[in-house]
């Protein structure tokens, strides 16, 4: 099973994208993870045989400690950080400099080659900030990937071709561009956007948050301000072996205690 362990760094965000799984926005409950905890998860993940760390949110770069924490985490395992790419001021860029020497990539969201279409989903000036940030990151030797999220009918072949031309022009190769569907959870569910999935259709990737361990980074979604629990594995996240073991058992389809007749009400 190992592979990547995901970490939710936080839930708040400077944006409020229409399809956000975690209803992230300014002012929501932060559910922020301490840097020591993020590092603990990374170290234990390595000891358990996991190969990568993924860090997502919310917008992780709202955490002031994040550049330094990423440098520590990436020294443990290769790291992928999901970000909206809109907070890379000159000061923050300088603090990211050490990441150029480490196995870390920033995955930045960009949903359309057309600024107005992109910004309709992701907020005003989002497109401009992202296309400004990507070359500045690359000039500093920091690896960048681009993630495009959307409904299948919103990105036709021509749009896709123009988006690919755009990311290539920004220095991001085709293999570093992923296109993924909207998952109908969180704000996307309220908006009637995206595709529904059964748990068994979602790849099992251990995901750690301050609220517990989940089946996948698509698990700890928020709807109506409440955390969804249908993909919760355990509230316990330490030692990491505990939720990892439970996830492994679920993946193998071995229910625990299913041979005991429950005679209570």
């Amino acid at each position, binding site marked *: 099973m190992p592979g990547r362990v995901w970490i939710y760094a936080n839930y708040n965000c400077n944006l409020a994208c229409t399809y956000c799984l975690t209803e992230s926005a300014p002012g929501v409950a932060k559910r922020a993870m301490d840097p020591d905890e993020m590092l603990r998860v990374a170290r234990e993940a390595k000891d358990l045989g996991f190969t990568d760390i993924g860090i997502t949110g919310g917008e992780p770069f709202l955490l002031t400690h994040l550049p330094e924490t990423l440098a520590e985490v990436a020294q443990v395992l290769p790291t992928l950080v999901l970000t909206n790419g809109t907070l890379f001021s000159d000061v923050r860029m300088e603090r990211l400099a050490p990441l150029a020497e480490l196995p870390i990539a920033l995955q930045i969201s960009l949903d359309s080659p057309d600024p107005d279409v992109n910004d309709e989903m992701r907020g005003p000036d989002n497109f401009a900030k992202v296309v400004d940030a990507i070359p500045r990151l690359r000039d500093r030797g920091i690896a960048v990937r681009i993630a495009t999220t959307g409904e299948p009918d919103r990105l036709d072949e021509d749009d896709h071709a123009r988006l690919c031309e755009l990311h290539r022009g920004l220095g991001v190769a085709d293999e570093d561009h992923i296109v993924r569907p909207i998952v109908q959870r969180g704000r996307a569910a309220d908006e009637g956007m995206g595709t529904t999935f059964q748990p068994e259709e979602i790849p099992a990737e251990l995901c750690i948050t301050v609220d517990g361990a989940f089946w996948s980074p698509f698990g700890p979604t928020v709807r109506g301000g409440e955390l969804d629990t249908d*993909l*919760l594995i*355990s509230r316990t996240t330490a030692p990491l072996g505990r939720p990892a073991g439970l996830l492994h058992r*679920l993946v193998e389809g071995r229910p625990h*205690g299913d041979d005991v*007749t429950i*005679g*209570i*009400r």
Partner: protein
Amino acid sequence: MSRVKLINAEEAPLLARPFYASGDPGPIVAALAQVPELLDVAMPFIGATLGPSFIPLRPKELVILRTSAVLQCRYCVEVHTVVASEAGLTADELVALREERPLAEVFDRPDELALLQWVDALALGRGPIADPIADAVRGHWGEPAMVELTVLVGTTMMLNRLCTGLELPTSPETLTRLAELGFSR
């Protein structure tokens, strides 16, 4: 009424789902589902203790209902009055177990009186249990049963405090059945 959210089938965490497979699992499971890793290990233990075993159902229900009554657990008394009735206990026996009549007026089997005395000593007492009470239950039931029945008292006490502390609600169906049996609660 419940002090905590009772998780429904749609919200059920993955480890909790087997317990929802046959419909509403009841408020104990629905509350424990908030901590699925705890539910996962607790339910097999609770099931093994309260459920069918080498000890017949009647003495187990004597223990569960009596313990719940002396600990004044509304939920457990309501539910297990119905369960005990379905296990064959008479109306008089239910009344006595619920502390609404002296036990000795209703129960005349020495083994059951010894067991009920053991339950009261464990559930109500503090510190050591007097030797005569322990000797009586060991003599009538044997050591393996004494062990399991003692664990049953403790497990019931745990559930009593869980249900009382969280103010778990009794189902309308159970309340209806209680009324049919002549009990207001």
